[in-house]
């Protein structure tokens, strides 16, 4: 079809949509480092906005990173063993549990957050602590960790590998950490990058869960978009991009390596 009218029409359409997706990102990035928004690029580049934003909102970035890595640690500890159990057991109970555990993805974060506030908003100092946000992020991110790990567990011959390790005399802990975990580390890594990316960008839930003392990056961004000038908002967005894009690229790299033959490790 190359060279035919179909190809060129397809290419034009694809490029047009790509421009729609990509151009705003460039415009925003450039606005964040342009000295004078009204004159344009000819006014030169500056790091002034970035520094200003960091001075005012640096705390939100640090809190978001803190929450993201805490979320990662907890979802790893909860999700990897749970995925192992779900991969090992084929029964109806296991499928029902799997259905239940992925439910939080299907329910809007707004609803989950409201429920959390109703149930636990009055418990001690929880409401004003960052743990409250952490709880929401764990609930929301756990399904993604579970799915990423489960997918790889189902792709390897888990039962056979484990039997082989048992035949060699390995105890459960020896085979879990010596055979299973090393063979699913691609899935664990993909799930981890996913969890950190999602936690860093989580807004639907966090907007309700946060307090003035626990503002995360996306909440700060929303505030900046309504309150600050374009160059500041853009600089702030640029900081977010700088955090999120390497994570996303890493995730794509891991997934593409897993697709290669013999690369599921």
């Amino acid at each position, binding site marked *: *079809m190359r060279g035919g009218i*179909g*190809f060129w029409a*397809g*290419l034009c*359409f*694809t490029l047009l*949509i*790509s421009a*729609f*997706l*990509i*151009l*705003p*990102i460039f*415009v925003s990035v450039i606005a964040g480092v342009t000295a004078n*928004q009204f004159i344009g690029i000819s006014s030169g580049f500056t790091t002034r906005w970035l520094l200003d934003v960091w001075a005012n909102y640096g705390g939100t970035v640090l809190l978001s990173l803190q929450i993201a890595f805490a979320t990662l640690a907890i979802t790893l*500890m*909860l*999700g990897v*063993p*749970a995925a192992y*159990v*779900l991969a090992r057991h084929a029964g109806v109970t296991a499928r029902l*549990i799997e259905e239940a*555990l*992925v*439910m939080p*993805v*299907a*329910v*809007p*974060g*707004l*609803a989950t957050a409201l*429920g959390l506030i*109703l*149930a*636990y908003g009055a418990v001690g100092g929880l409401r004003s602590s960052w743990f409250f946000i952490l709880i929401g992020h*764990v*609930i929301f991110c*756990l399904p993604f960790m579970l799915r990423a790990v489960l997918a790889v567990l189902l792709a390897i011959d888990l039962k056979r590998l484990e039997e082989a390790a048992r035949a060699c005399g390995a105890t*459960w802990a020896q085979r879990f950490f010596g055979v299973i975990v090393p063979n699913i580390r691609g899935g664990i890594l993909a799930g981890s990058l996913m969890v950190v990316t999602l936690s860093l*960008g989580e*807004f*639907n839930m966090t907007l*309700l869960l946060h307090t003035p003392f626990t503002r995360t990056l*996306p909440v700060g*961004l*929303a505030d900046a*978009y*309504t309150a600050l000038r*374009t160059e500041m*908002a*853009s600089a702030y*967005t640029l900081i*977010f991009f700088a955090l999120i894009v390497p994570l*996303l*690229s890493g995730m*794509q790299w891991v997934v593409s390596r897993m697709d290669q033959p013999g690369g599921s490790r």
Partner: protein
Amino acid sequence: MHDRLRAGLLIAPALAIFLAFFLIPLGYLAVAGGAGGYSAILTEPRFLRSLVSTLLVAAATTVITLFISTIMGLFLARVRFRGRSTLLALLTLPLAFPGVVVGYLVIMLAGRQGLIAEVSMALGGDRIVFAYSLAGLLLGYVYFSIPRTLLTLMAAAEKLDPRLEEAARSLGASPFGVLRDVLLPGIAPAMAAAGAICFATATGAFGTAFALASRIDVLPMVIYTEFTLQANLAVAAALSFLLGIATWAVLAVARGASGGAAA
């Protein structure tokens, strides 16, 4: 240690967290609405109006996204040209953007100082601004949904057996016939799955609407307003419980229909 006991111990922490911080809060949410909250939804026309406009925006988003992503997905899955992989990497960037950032990007594109406004003025026309209207919201939702949908449909198109297409052509099918009889039926399950996710996301997300400070009363915005500004907890709870059940049901049905391909 007994196998079942160990399995139970390993999955218990995840289940405990799920029960404590998802099911119980959802239970609170269900009852917090009370008879007053649920009856208010049915009687006050503005809630019904917002429900209708939410469903319409979500449906429009789904149709537009599926249309764009199907064309692009089939094209990108079947052709190879220089820069294709770079383009693909760029196209997946927005995957990680939360709705609130997408809203800002819509302002960059169609806001008062946006790209479209600048270009239209430079061409001697009026300053075109539509970021804060229904069109802007729709644009944001479509922006948000395209990368996800595109990836799903591309993967489905790449899995199609090329021999099916060759067989259809050997039997004399036109390009349109191949599209209608082979390609579209082949990716239909993926389209159903991706469409359902698209619909559910557009129904439940409000970052984009929030960033655009849009005047469109989509349901999540109404819930947020009722909760924070009006302190009308009963209605907010009732609305969000129904919203949660609805999006979950849409996804569950789609998953059943597509044989497990949807989230």
